[in-house]
């Protein structure tokens, strides 16, 4: 492996371009491989989503037999698909989970990033340990508990266990963001005559907003993509998209409706991908926060 590679900025030194640069060519080839590997399966999903069911297994690389039918199937209630409902459910569950995690977690993150106190390590360890907790260890007792109290299949039956992984994620990410923030500005603002409230509103809030927003996106994606808990604890009325896609009904009984599933997958994925691409830098910062510093 060519380790000249690991010279991020040095490679741009202009005079290296004078002769033909083999290492640069290797870089481009590798980059192309990465692009193909990451994008082609997703591309295939979209192509299939627009393909006529009768040509499900057509292997032409570009779109053929283009149709919107599969998207109609996805929302066709007479087939037993309630995808609009499922989308709304996912929004409710992921949205509520994110809000709870954020509202509660922001205080903890502030304390962990800004204050000195005993047991800081223990607290952080507990929160991190919580994020690694296996979902099945929650599902079994909650299955029984929610059945007993009649919460089975309700929104809170999913939101509560979802908090177990979104809240630690939120605290962990926000803590790292908060540590990076120039808190000195707060003090200087107060020296300049701002009240504490003003300093908070005018200095801290604008600074913390992007970090909080990024964290919210990460938490939202985590809850939106959740499958195990929802597959066990949701009901017809509250089923989110991930579970709906796994049990999709086609036009015929017993049928594996590949094209419709790909259409549903496309609908679920496109907004996320746009969100992620727009906020790419922030999200990468959020994902890697804490892990490397």
């Amino acid at each position, binding site marked *: 492996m060519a380790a000249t590679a690991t010279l991020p900025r040095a490679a741009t030194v202009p005079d290296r371009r004078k002769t033909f640069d083999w290492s640069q060519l290797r870089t481009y080839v590798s980059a192309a491989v990465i692009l193909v590997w990451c994008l082609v*399966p997703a591309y295939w999903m979209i192509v299939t989503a627009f393909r006529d069911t009768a040509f499900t297994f057509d292997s032409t690389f570009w779109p053929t037999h283009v149709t919107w039918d599969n998207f109609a199937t996805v929302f066709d209630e007479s087939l037993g698909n309630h995808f609009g409902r499922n989308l709304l459910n996912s929004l409710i569950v992921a949205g509520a989970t994110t809000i709870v995690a954020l509202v509660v977690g922001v205080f903890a993150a502030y304390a*962990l990033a800004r204050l000195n106190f005993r047991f*800081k390590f223990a607290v952080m360890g507990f929160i991190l340990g919580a994020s690694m907790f296996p979902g*099945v*260890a929650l*599902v079994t007792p909650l299955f029984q508990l929610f059945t007993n109290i009649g919460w089975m299949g309700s929104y809170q039956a999913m939101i509560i266990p979802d908090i177990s992984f979104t809240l630690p994620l939120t605290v962990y990410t926000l803590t790292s963001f908060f540590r990076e923030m120039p808190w000195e500005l707060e003090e200087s603002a107060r020296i300049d005559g701002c009240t504490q409230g003003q300093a908070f509103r005018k200095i801290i809030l604008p600074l913390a907003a992007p970090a909080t927003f990024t964290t919210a996106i990460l938490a939202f994606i985590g809850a939106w993509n959740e499958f195990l808990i929802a597959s066990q604890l949701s009901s017809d009325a509250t089923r989110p998209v991930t579970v709906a896609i796994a049990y999709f009904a086609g036009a015929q009984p017993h049928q594996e409706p590949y094209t419709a599933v790909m259409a549903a997958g496309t609908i679920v994925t496109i907004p996320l991908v746009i969100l992620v691409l727009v906020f790419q830098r922030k999200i990468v910062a959020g994902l890697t926060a804490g892990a490397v510093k």
Partner: protein
Amino acid sequence: MSTKLPERTTAGAPAQTHHMPGRESADRKQVTQGRWASVLLVPTLVLLAVVIIYPVVNAIIMSFQKDAGLNPATGFFEQGGPAGFENYMHWLFQQCNGQSCPPGTLGSQFWNAMGTTFFFTVVTVALETVLGFWMAIIMTRSFRGRSAVRAAVLVPWAIPTAVTAKLWFFIFAFDGIANKLFGTQILWTGSEWPAKWAVVISDVWKTTPFMALLILAGLQLIPDEVYEAAKVDGASAWQRFTQITLPLVKPALMVAILFRTLDALRMFDLPYIMTQGANNTTTLSILVVDQIREGFNSAAALSTITFIVIFLVAFIFVRFLGANAVGAATSSGRK
């Protein structure tokens, strides 16, 4: 339980107050800050206790109860009563009613599921580390379109696992594109090893980006001067990689590997949707879910075992392999 994790690691990272000048005022400050901190932390800790500790304690209590059994005289189910360690023996020693669990029972699948879970974990994490490292190195280089590549790797990461599973299930269908592309006639989900590899490939596709980004972040912290100096000293590319890149990126790498390992140990969505656990792709998580409908209490014992296994692996990582996630998260400023 998880709180034990950090205590082991504190030794290596001295508390910050010790570096501060003026111990006394710092100590007083710490007391007021401590009070503040507890107020701010209480909501999070209480909420986590409700959503995690309560269910876990409940599961442990359940795991010592017998599942309802059929009374042969009446033909009706009756409450089981205390079970002692019976449910644990059932899984760990494959005991079904005093005999060894025969093939075709969930009990007989425990060690298989354990093996499958660890197979998936070791293979996917190893592949993801190597590929992720490679991707990260490419992404540190300077070339036109680098930001496009960095954006592209986020696409598999953003797609929900359930959708990923369906997508690869379609790719690996008998008439699917994988077989056509390679001119093979493999029944990917029809026998053990193809099914396992299908799951591995999907998982690698989905999660290598995450690994690559974590490693990339670590690589970017290595100052260029270090490489320049090594070059001047005549270090070869390979030497620079093994003696500079690897050691310097190791903390970030270990945390990334720890995260991925713990995630892989609870793998559920991909095999559950792609194969329903057939052909020896049943992971521990799938086995628990299958058991829930055959008896809660036995399932509770199994989920407790799963949780202990994951805890032990995390412990080993932190204690012996130096994956210091907590340290990374609590120390302030860049090293």
